[in-house]
């Protein structure tokens, strides 16, 4: 079952992230030298440049850093969704990630709003992490 929205392109950096998403576990790289979490995935720690990191589950909790409300769909897969909300979510562990805010009317979304992860199963291979009010 495919829902016609774009799917992620997998590369060596992000493969584990999306594999864990399939299990509905939000997982980030954690530097094993300085202990910092990071996102987007990368082969070096942006803080200390260490190459060693471990994929570590995170709480799935955070708050909205900023957001935008789409009144136009630029991809046919989102036509039925407008108005929909994209957001930069600041995870409790530090890094931010792009996502959507769901289960909340767009006019009620605000910067700083506490949110938690929820999942959309896009097809047999991919589950997409979304956020809803916590």
């Amino acid at each position, binding site marked *: 079952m495919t829902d016609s929205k774009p799917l992620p392109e997998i590369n060596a950096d992000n493969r584990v992230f999306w594999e864990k998403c399939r299990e509905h576990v939000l997982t980030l790289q954690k530097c094993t030298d300085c202990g910092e979490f990071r996102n987007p995935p990368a082969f070096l720690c942006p803080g200390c440049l260490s190459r060693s990191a471990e994929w570590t589950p995170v709480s799935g909790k955070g708050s909205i850093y900023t957001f935008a409300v789409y009144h136009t769909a630029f*991809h046919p897969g*989102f036509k039925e969704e407008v108005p929909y909300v994209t957001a930069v979510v600041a995870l409790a562990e530090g890094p931010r990630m*792009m996502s959507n805010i769901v289960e909340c009317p767009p006019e009620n979304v605000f910067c700083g709003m506490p949110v938690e992860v929820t999942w959309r199963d896009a097809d047999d291979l991919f589950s997409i992490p979304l956020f809803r009010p916590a």
Partner: protein
Amino acid sequence: MHAVCALESGLCRYVLLSYGHSGRSGDSMMRMLAGMTGNDAVYGHFGAAGGYALAAQRAMHEMETGPETWKHIASGQRAWAGLNPDAMLHKRPLSEQEYLDSPYMIEPFRLHDNCLVSDGGRACILTTTERARNLPHPVVSIMGMGQHNPSADLLNADFLAGATGARQAGEQAFAMAQITTGDIDACQIYDCFTYTVEVTLQDYGFFAPGEGRTWFSGGTIAPGGRMPVNTSGGQLAEAYYMGLTPLTEAVMQLMGRCGNRQLGPETRTKTPGIILCSDNGAILQTHACYILRRY
């Protein structure tokens, strides 16, 4: 900046800066915009508008800004386009109320917060002042320039609401020119979105964070205003030619080649001796500032 290095080192005698694109009639601009969000397209995050909307929303959270500020920018630049027969939105005046009544595209941006997609181009030739003196046009020289590129990482950026790269690039350019904002007669600001104009002028020091709404109100940037901005209509109302929209307009204004929109008595503005212009890239992630003067 590269062109100046090439001229100063003697590698070149003349450097052509050019931009041309069939952005409107072809599909390459839309393809570029669709590709620029990478895997974040999974969430329906699209193009430059999606990124700048995120920046503008954050700015609304951190300081006093929003549609009541941006309406002055959209309508002021549109008034300049009314004096420019080459502008795509020539003779299409925009009142502040019409701006507020226009539909949201990617909120907080309405239709008129967005720049145009255009067919066309602009070009500019750089050479040394010595050579330029023997050429037919008046000489326009570079007083100062600066560049600052804060980060490639947008998600974790702390500059979306300012200070953007304009802060440091502006400081470098003003230091090189040995002048201050009070010496500037007009500005040509990279205006992919209305908010970009606000945050850029704010970071250059024309007003304090959140004071843009007052600074822009009353026709400050429009014909007859005390600080004309984007006098061709800019990317919002003339045409989108990347950084060459502002740069070439500054050069032509200083040369006195701008017809009905020429700064000076005709447009009830100061005859310009010094014009500041900006360019920026990605989502406020790269920035260049140039201060030009009539030689």
